[in-house]
């Protein structure tokens, strides 16, 4: 408790609008500091932001450019919300995404499957591969207590080198000569686009459905109840017999699977082939972590936060083209936003109230036990 001038800062139940306000303030603060970075880079921050708004937001045809990265970010983010709710730190969405892309590529090019079932099969295989890529660290955590942060991260690199190897070695397309690509997918494996754009809308629909299903799972089902209990208090989960095994496997499979779907969308909707891992995913698996963190445990909120980071990706493109900055600049935004988000987290439990100083606080005649902190 503190009194700052006429304001009283007090602990309170976290409310929705306050969460939104604090999160928005954190994002704005991150943009301000990023402006300082631009300045250090030798760029007038006001001009930089003006260009970003002009070319990235107001220019015609920019919305599709925002939506394109939004699609994988939504899938990754909505899945990770589930994992984070169970306090499972899945940092491996990047690798899970790539695993999904690899599986989809296999279906498209090497399974011999053709016809209308090709795309559903690719999505199914992508989900399964992403889930499996996530399940290995889950099993290691549950059986050998290997920290999943480290293991999922390592799996990202394993996936990256796996994709590199595939496209330079065994899966290198005979028709592409010197490039490290596979052959292009057959037409049956191409996702439909919204005409005139590069938005593979089926994946977008899948993303919204995944987010909605995640919300339903978390809020309205017994499994979601278990995920919440496990995440909020693992001791209590053990005490009432919630199986940590089941919840951990479930959230790792679901978040990995969702990331896998994102990988399918990228190869089937954007590239139509498997190529260098840094081109399959522009760091979506890492940015998705912030998408999920900003969504504050609500899968549906990931729709909005994914769009915000879609905006940052398209701003990154604009800065690359109009301001000749490296695309890496998006990492600066990502890092700063994440810092401000977690830095502001403690504010969520407090509320600032107008309360001119009073003399003393009267003790309520608390019935039953009213032990102050530390009295027990």
């Amino acid at each position: 408790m503190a009194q700052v001038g006429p304001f009283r800062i007090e602990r309170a139940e976290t409310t929705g609008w306050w969460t939104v306000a604090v999160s928005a303030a954190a994002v704005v603060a991150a943009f301000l500091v990023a402006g300082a970075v631009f300045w250090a880079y030798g760029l007038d921050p006001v001009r930089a932001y003006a260009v970003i708004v002009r070319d990235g937001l107001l220019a015609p045809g920019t919305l599709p450019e925002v939506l394109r990265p939004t699609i994988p970010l939504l899938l990754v983010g909505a899945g990770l919300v589930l994992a984070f709710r169970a306090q499972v730190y899945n940092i491996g969405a990047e690798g899970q995404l790539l695993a999904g892309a690899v599986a989809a590529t296999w279906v498209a090019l090497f399974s011999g499957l053709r016809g209308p079932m090709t795309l559903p099969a690719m999505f199914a295989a992508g989900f399964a591969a992403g889930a499996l890529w996530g399940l290995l660290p889950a099993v290691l955590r549950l059986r050998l207590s290997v920290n999943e942060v480290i293991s999922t991260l390592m799996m990202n690199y394993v996936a990256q080198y796996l994709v590199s190897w595939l496209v330079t070695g065994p899966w290198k397309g005979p028709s592409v000569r010197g490039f490290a690509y596979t052959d292009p997918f057959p037409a049956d494996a191409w996702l439909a686009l919204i005409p005139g754009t590069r938005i593979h809308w089926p994946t977008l629909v899948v993303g919204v459905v995944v987010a909605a299903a995640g919300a339903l799972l978390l809020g309205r089902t017994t499994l979601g109840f278990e995920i919440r209990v496990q995440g909020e208090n693992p001791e209590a989960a053990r005490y009432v017999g919630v199986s940590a095994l089941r919840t951990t496997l479930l959230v790792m499979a679901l978040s990995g699977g969702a990331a896998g779907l994102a990988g399918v969308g990228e190869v089937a909707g954007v590239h139509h082939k498997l190529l260098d891992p840094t081109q399959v995913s522009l760091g979506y698996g890492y940015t998705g972590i912030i998408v999920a963190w900003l969504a504050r445990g609500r899968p549906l909120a990931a729709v909005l936060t994914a769009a915000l980071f879609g905006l940052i990706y398209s701003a990154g493109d604009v800065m690359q083209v109009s301001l000749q900055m490296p695309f890496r600049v998006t990492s600066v935004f990502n890092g700063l936003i994440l810092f401000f988000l977690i830095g502001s987290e403690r504010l969520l439990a407090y509320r600032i109230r107008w309360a001119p100083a009073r003399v003393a606080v009267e003790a309520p005649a608390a019935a039953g036990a009213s032990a102050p902190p530390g009295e027990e």
Partner: protein
Amino acid sequence: MLEWVASVLVRGMAFGTPLLWGALGEIYAERAGVVNLGVEGMMILGAFVAFATAQTTGHPVLGLLAAAGVGGAAALLHAFVSVTLRANQYVSGLALTMLGLGLAGLLGRGWEGFPLDHPLPELSVLPPLGVLAAVLLWALLYHTRWGLILRTVGESPAAADAQAVPVELVRYLAVVFGGVMAGVAGGFLSVAYRPAWTEGMTGGMGWIVVALAIFAGWDPLRAVGAALLFGTLFHLSFRLQTWIPPEPLQMMPFAFTILVLALTSRRGARTGQAPEALGVPYVRGER
């Protein structure tokens, strides 16, 4: 054959050097109870700043000092967010890595593609200093009052606090020290190991460093052996490219890390356990 093995080991030592420096720093930070997943970010910043400074001034040692400074400054940010603001340490470290990679990528543009004019000798300076540092840090940790303070803060900050140990200060110092070491580790890459600057040149080594701290059981001396092992593995992934395609080999250190963590997870109760308060922010009066 023997010559081949010897040369592999020497190269392994070279590659193991940044791992060792980084791991020593991470071990100290974690001994104080703070995980720093920002090693990758601090290393890449160190690599860039070391190169830029060395290239500008012509003195690689100045480059290393600058790298140490920038690593420490980056770690200070992590310390502020995770110690003072008590935010989630894992996420704060991730944010630091993203920020470091982004800043180095942004500011380092234009420095790429030029070899360093006056590089530091690769084997004669930082590798032996690293081993010496490991011995000193080991003695400091287990046989001095400072080490006792550090270990107590990591095991039970409440006990340290009740003994009038300034818990937050100790954690700040340990985290910043970790950043200094990570900065030097990155600097080694760009002024000695491969005297040039390339974006993303740390290539995931920062994460291996974090794993090494665990693998070494948070013991500075054991980190020497662990770093040599992983350095050799890294080197082999280049050396064997004559026979095996590079990608599966480059995958090896990462896959091996998972394997090693899995194999060593069930150690005896007395050795190599994580500090009890690792990753837990300390709030006075809360149990």
